[in-house]
């Protein structure tokens, strides 16, 4: 974030601009996005010093997507996502300590150290996981929608995916079924322009906003770097879906400020340094909101710095917690392969002792 000079501010209002978002919520969204940013930077640091292994996909630059959508939900609403989901787990209510401990592969991790960065789960807050196969989480989300309708409940499902997922059959089969059965699911593409290193327009001749129409699912586009616009949109969509409107498709336009994963440089073969710098300068969701809050006179530099210090502290505490957490006990190796161990017959065939 670049520093900005204090200007004369208009008086405080309860509601921010044209968005209908309360001042309290605007400040909360800022707190959340700062937390996500500082958390991911801490994860980046942990990866660099070898505390985190495997694949690790950061959400830096896309914080508005997580905050603006998930903060419009109830705890009994469902969220499911791809492998870029640390911040979405936190937004849904998984503790940052549990997320970081999972990245570290520790016993207190959100998935007991069995999932890692790509597979954070939080059953108690209906965070249904980070998923590692592109698009494969979309049918699962459709199934949560099915269950909600089957039981006559009024919760809502938000299903995140990257832009590459819309070229998978799983996406199209799911949207078709959601439309046929009027399921309460909001399918959200975080359109950061690249599926790994392949620009979306190189693998699709139609635009993202056109992807849901053929299935009869209403599509909406939003500037995901504008968290107030995103939040306002999701408030409306969630209310509609809860009232029985059926599914929506959201083309949430965003941009990733880091590489695809920790092994991918920020810029290089498929996008230029200038392009990335342009987005960081003009379309950083935290800077965009900061200007809005400054202009509304509800936040100043000093308070922002306090909020940022709090976010850094939570991230640092999460790393300390993860570091202090033990590695999973070896006796967890065979735990939870089966939900039901039948009294008869063998289930394991490796010939190893499991005592």
């Amino acid at each position, binding site marked *: 974030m670049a520093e900005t000079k204090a200007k004369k501010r208009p008086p405080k209002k309860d509601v921010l601009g044209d968005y209908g978002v309360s001042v309290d919520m605007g400040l909360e969204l800022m707190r959340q996005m700062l937390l996500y940013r500082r958390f991911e930077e801490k994860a980046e640091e942990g990866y660099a010093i070898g505390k985190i292994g495997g694949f690790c996909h950061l959400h830096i630059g896309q914080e508005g997507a997580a905050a603006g959508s998930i903060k419009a939900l109830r705890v009994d609403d469902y969220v499911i996502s791809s492998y870029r989901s640390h911040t979405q787990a936190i937004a849904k209510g998984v503790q940052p300590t549990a997320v970081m401990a999972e990245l570290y592969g520790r016993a207190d991790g959100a998935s007991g150290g069995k999932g890692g960065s790509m597979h954070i789960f939080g059953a108690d807050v209906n965070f249904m996981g980070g998923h590692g196969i592109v698009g*494969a989480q979309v049918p*699962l989300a459709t199934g949560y929608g099915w269950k909600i309708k089957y039981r006559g409940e009024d919760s809502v499902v938000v299903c995140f995916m990257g832009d590459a997922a819309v070229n998978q059959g799983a996406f199209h089969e799911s949207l*078709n079924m959601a439309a046929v059965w009027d399921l309460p699911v909001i399918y959200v593409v975080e359109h950061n322009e690249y599926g790994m290193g392949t620009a979306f327009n190189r693998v699709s001749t139609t635009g993202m906003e056109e992807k849901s129409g053929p299935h009869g699912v209403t599509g909406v586009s939003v500037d995901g770097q504008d968290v107030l616009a995103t939040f306002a949109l999701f408030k409306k969509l969630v209310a509609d879906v809860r009232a029985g409107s059926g599914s929506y498709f959201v083309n949430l336009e965003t941009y990733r400020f880091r590489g695809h994963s920790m092994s991918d440089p920020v810029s290089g073969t498929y996008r230029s340094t200038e392009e990335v710098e342009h987005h960081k300068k003009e379309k950083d969701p935290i800077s965009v909101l900061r200007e809005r809050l400054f202009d509304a006179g509800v936040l100043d530099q000093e308070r922002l710095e306090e909020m940022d210090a709090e976010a850094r502290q939570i991230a640092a505490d999460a790393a300390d917690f993860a570091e202090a957490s033990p590695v999973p006990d070896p006796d*967890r190796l065979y735990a939870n392969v089966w939900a039901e161990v039948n009294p*008869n*017959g063998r289930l394991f065939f490796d010939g190893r002792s499991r005592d």
Partner: protein
Amino acid sequence: MAVMTYRDALNAALREEMILDPDVFLMGEEVAEYDGAYKVSKGLLDEFGERRVVDSPISELGFAGLGVGAAMAGLRPVIEFMTFNFAFLALDQVINNATKLHYMSDGQFKVPIVFRGPTGAALQLSAQHSQACETYYTHAPGCKVVTPGTPADAKGLLKAAIRDDDPVAFMEGETLYSLKGEVPDDDDFIIPLGVADLKREGSDVSIITHGKMIHVALQAAGKLEKDGIEADVLDLRTIRPLDMDAILETVAKTNRVVYLEEGWPFAGTGAQIVSMIQEEAFDHLDAPIRRVTQADIPMPYAKNLENLAKPSANRVVEACNQVLYR
């Protein structure tokens, strides 16, 4: 006891479990208005309505995944594949999601789902419609695999599969649907997973098999009997969990084993069983174990070629004679 077809036994199991548990629903291609491609779900739409008996689009990946999600969220779906030949499209949802979510989430989510439908060859349906698919599912930890060969087993095992808290691949036989047999009509008739069944007793040689191959094994045993050879025919009934005790018992009794399966030999079910027998019962063996499988080729269409490709009673007799050094 009532005499009923394998098809009606499956229907009874579905109906009884749907009455007992409101979270059980059936989804798949043609299961509702058409009564099921093989009429297994006949009458269920009328009885339970379209909320619980659901015609899906032809989207195997999609509706299998929908079922996995519904199971994660607390329902108990029965997902019908018109045949397991079509379920390759859904394998990602079965293997990467259904079988792994319990482990990856360290037990936070259960996936109590049954994927059911016919496996193996019927008659002259050629290569894409004639393959035994068990090993794709037995290969993955987290998936139980059930292969009933009689009407009674079909009913008792399907009820057990629906009540089980794990994903179950429940693999039927296209040519078994009209097979008649005695079936208990008690709605608490359950055959627990993991219990093999000795379909015939003998002391000279063990034919171990599963699914609809039990009928080929029994036919072979009948031919052997004429030569004074008595075969044990052990029906595994479920491949995971596997009743290894029953396998070791028959091996200790006869000391000679033939494994018969409908699928291909490479890394087949028989390959696993043979490996375990040599590890755990080597001293009981009087001869190398033989396997009888489908020819190692895609299934041809022409009737004569198809017959040559399928495992047959004559091939089983031949294998038994080999292990008996006759």
